[in-house]
């Protein structure tokens, strides 16, 4: 089984294995563009839907067995189902109202809508996705959640051009890269099927190009966050290592409020830039979430 290759990286292998077999809790995020956390919780109370806040993220609620889509708050765009750990990268990017922000691989829009809320729906959030089919889900979610600050594009983010948008650099960029998705095994047990090292290496090439372009499109002093839902160092630390070597950027430390492990500096005989330790690996058993990888870079030209 694929996940065994990561057991040397995990301290508590038994807990890791057990967590990967359990389904994920149902979690939803309050869309603060539409309403307040208090009002959403009151509406859930009125409907008899048990919920409890997630400690590290305001407005993220664990629901007691209820699918958020079938509730009045979801109909009104107050609530959006989102896996707990996937709420991390937007918080790390920390966009501000009025900024120009790039979401390079935006569909289906959970992180996009979270970015828009953090921006107080002010500024320009370029929500791009190369896949036209997935773009319709992104547009549907952005509309349902009442987002006015998103400009949706359908380009290959590896050579994204800012020219049509009328400005020459982003303040911040999120690369929530397509990946081999092993970390989503709890949501989708089939994530392991079709896994091959050749596929990992191929997707790593795409990830490197995506991150390279995002760094290039961000102003000096700006922030780029790189995130995946895979444990594979080939798609995580190795991608950072390659981009650090060729682009004007550096990794910076960040806090998450979640239990996390540092990025690994060695994997299968390869050594990576020691600063990749600033990145965070989140294993399913640490916080009862999906698996995740997240790194924060500062652009310095």
């Amino acid at each position: 089984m694929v996940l065994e290759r990561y057991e040397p990286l995990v301290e508590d292998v038994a807990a890791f294995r057990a967590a990967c077999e359990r389904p994920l809790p149902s979690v939803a995020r309050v869309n603060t563009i539409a309403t307040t956390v208090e009002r959403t919780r009151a509406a859930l109370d009125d409907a008899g839907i048990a919920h409890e806040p997630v400690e590290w993220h305001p407005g993220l609620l664990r629901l007691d067995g209820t699918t958020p889509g079938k509730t009045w708050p979801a109909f009104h765009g107050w609530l959006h189902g989102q896996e707990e750990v996937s709420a991390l990268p937007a918080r790390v990017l920390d966009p501000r109202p009025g900024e120009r922000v790039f979401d390079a691989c935006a569909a289906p829009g959970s992180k996009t809508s979270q970015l828009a809320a953090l921006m107080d729906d002010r500024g320009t959030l370029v929500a791009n996705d190369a896949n036209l089919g997935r773009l319709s889900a992104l547009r549907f979610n952005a509309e349902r959640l009442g987002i006015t600050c998103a400009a949706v594009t359908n380009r290959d983010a590896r050579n994204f051009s800012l020219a049509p948008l009328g400005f020459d650099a982003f303040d911040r960029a999120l690369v929530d890269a397509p990946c081999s998705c092993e970390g989503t095994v709890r949501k989708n047990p089939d994530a392991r099927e079709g896994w091959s090292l050749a596929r990992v290496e191929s997707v790593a090439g795409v990830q490197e190009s995506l991150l390279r372009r995002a760094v290039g499109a961000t102003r000096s002093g700006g922030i780029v966050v790189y995130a995946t839902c895979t444990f594979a160092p080939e798609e995580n630390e190795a991608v950072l290592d390659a981009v650090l070597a060729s682009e004007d950027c550096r990794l910076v430390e960040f806090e998450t409020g979640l239990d996390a492990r540092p990025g690994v500096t060695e994997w299968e005989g390869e050594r990576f830039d020691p600063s990749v330790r600033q990145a965070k690996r989140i294993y399913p058993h640490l916080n009862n979430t999906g698996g995740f990888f997240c790194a924060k870079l500062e652009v310095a030209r």
Partner: protein
Amino acid sequence: MRGDGASGGADDGGGAEGGRGAGVDRDAGRDNDGQRFDRLPATADERRVEGRATREAVLDWWDERFAIPPERFERFTFWEKGAGKIWIFGDDAPSGVEIEALGLTFLRTRQEHWKPTTDAVQRFGRAASRNVIELDREAARRFAAGEDQAIGWGGDWGYLIAAHGLAGEPEPLGIGLYLHGELRSQIPKGRRRELR
């Protein structure tokens, strides 16, 4: 708009493109391009594409129809992509930009009677104080499911904002077309839900 049965156009999801695509401005030589976002002119004096709504007219319409004051929309820009489809954007952008979406779909101005989108009403309708019909929970449930229903209303006919009480305050559900004692839900198919 009392008694007007032709308000129709219940195509919140967007009907045929370019129904008025021949809205050519002979002076400027520009037409209404279905692939491009063009900024609404501020006023009729600045209009270069025939039939295009103006920012002023859009803000006046929300004010007159729902008593949402123009100040509510001060920080937003307004755009047309395709004939009569107006979008609202929370920033500025170059006019003519060719992308998939720029902000939120906001208003259809192709028909005689302008029609706001469900998403715009859920986003901005809380500020409305005119032509808002308050529904009880059962009527709200039917409205969210896309059903038409007989219901009393002493005000204007035409497009109304349907609202219901949620967590202690009224909350807009979407747009309903009120005609002949009946409220016809305009919630687009993809947004309809069977709720309790």
